């Protein structure tokens, strides 16, 4: 079986390594072949950008050479796909090379698009790239007081970031002695502090305890950078001194250009992770690239990749898939500089977050290092 993986992020890398381990003998015997086509020779642990924004990590700590993470049996080409010819079962890359496949795995991820909201890109800081996270820290370190407005666009990658960035900034400015001069103004698109009801039930009292003001049903419509003013679709106007945003996201432009899915997200079966429609037998979609109504997060990508890898290996060995993806997600929630909790849920079981504690924060800090074992398909 010729397997072509498009995308070298969390989903693509974990999938490719997991399959390579399961099919080691088939790869050696030439009965299977795995090719990865990706846009960068670097692999980035994106959840670490939160810590860069707080001055607690530097971008180089979050990068590895992609080749160093992949099983040697995987053929890596830093040569992104430009054309998906699904009917003919091949893709064409930027260099003009054609790769034929029996099974295509699309894991191209999502990207922030703050420019879709007028004024947002000019006025706001966010932590969705290494460069933006460094800029975030510059602005936060220079902040001397005033109102910090937090806005949340839809859809967005990493559903815990709105809470995490707010709690992290609170602790950062508290330690600088700026609590009395700072007002936090947290907004959220729906009628509670977080999409997960039980997480919102925990977060709102935390906000109250820390003096963080919250406004719900706030979907950012436009920003007036000159006057420091944000307006919502619901008709609210809020002044700010520092605007922090979780920007809206889209899928990759190549997905839209090839008409594989609206806004760059591909229609995907929630259990089999197969592309919906006539190419279901030859296309799997993983991670942020799906249009599934579940969290766009590294954790989702990780668990989807494991389920898909197990199925693909079983297909090669026995001709039958063996697993359905059950919607499993496990997200840490940093609740400040030294405490954390988590949310674990699937399609049928909501999360039951516990009170934050130091041990869970230590676990998160350890996982930030252990991630490289996950990327290699080992953890």
């Amino acid at each position, binding site marked *: 079986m010729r397997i072509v993986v498009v995308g070298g992020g969390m989903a693509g890398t974990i999938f490719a390594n997991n399959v390579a381990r399961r099919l080691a003998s088939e790869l050696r015997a030439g009965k299977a072949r795995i090719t990865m086509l990706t846009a960068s020779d670097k692999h980035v642990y994106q959840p670490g950008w939160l810590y860069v924004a707080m001055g607690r990590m530097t971008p180089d700590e979050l990068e590895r050479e992609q080749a160093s993470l992949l099983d040697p049996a995987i053929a890596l080409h830093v040569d992104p796909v430009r054309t998906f010819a699904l009917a003919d079962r091949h893709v064409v890359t930027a260099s003009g090379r054609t790769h034929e496949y029996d099974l295509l795995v699309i894991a191209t991820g999502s990207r922030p698009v703050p420019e879709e909201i007028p004024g947002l890109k000019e006025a706001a800081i966010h932590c969705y790239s290494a460069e933006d996270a460094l800029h975030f820290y510059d602005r936060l370190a220079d902040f001397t007081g005033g109102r910090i407005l937090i806005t949340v666009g*839809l*859809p967005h990658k990493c*559903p815990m970031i709105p809470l995490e960035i707010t709690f992290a900034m609170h602790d950062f400015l508290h330690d600088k002695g700026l609590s009395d001069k700072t007002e936090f103004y947290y907004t959220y*698109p*729906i*009628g509670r502090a977080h*999409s*997960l*009801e039980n997480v919102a039930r925990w977060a709102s009292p935390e906000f109250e305890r820390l003096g963080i003001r919250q406004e719900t*049903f706030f*979907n950012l419509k436009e920003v007036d950078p000159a006057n420091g003013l944000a307006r919502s*679709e*619901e*008709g609210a106007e809020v002044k700010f001194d520092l605007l922090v945003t979780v920007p*809206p996201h889209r899928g990759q432009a190549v997905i839209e250009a090839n008409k594989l899915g*609206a*806004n760059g997200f591909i229609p995907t079966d*929630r259990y089999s992770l197969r592309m919906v429609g006539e190419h279901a037998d030859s296309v799997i979609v993983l991670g942020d690239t799906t249009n599934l*109504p*579940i*969290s766009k997060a590294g954790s989702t990508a990780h668990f989807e990749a494991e389920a898909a890898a197990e199925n693909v290996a079983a297909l090669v060995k026995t001709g039958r898939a063996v697993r359905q993806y059950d*919607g499993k*997600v496990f997200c840490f929630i940093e609740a400040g500089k030294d405490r954390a909790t988590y*949310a674990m*849920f699937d*399609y*049928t079981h*909501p*999360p039951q977050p516990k009170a934050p504690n130091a041990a869970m924060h230590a676990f998160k800090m350890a996982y930030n290092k252990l991630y490289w074992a996950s990327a290699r398909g080992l953890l």
Partner: protein
Amino acid sequence: MAETTLVDARGSFCPGPLMELITTLKRAQVGDVLELLSSDAGSAKDVPEWVRKVGHVLERTERDPAGVWHLFVRKEK
């Protein structure tokens, strides 16, 4: 031309049905109707509340025998 788009948010705890609706509605055309499927009973309350706040129209709400809510929302602006 106005279209009806299905937003299947069954089994979605995060981002959840209302966030899925807002996401899709944002990029729909004025006049389009979205049919939101939700297995969360809370959608029958929070979707109408948000739709009213923003100024869209909730055309109708149904609950099928399987307990799934179908909420039909028309984009007004």
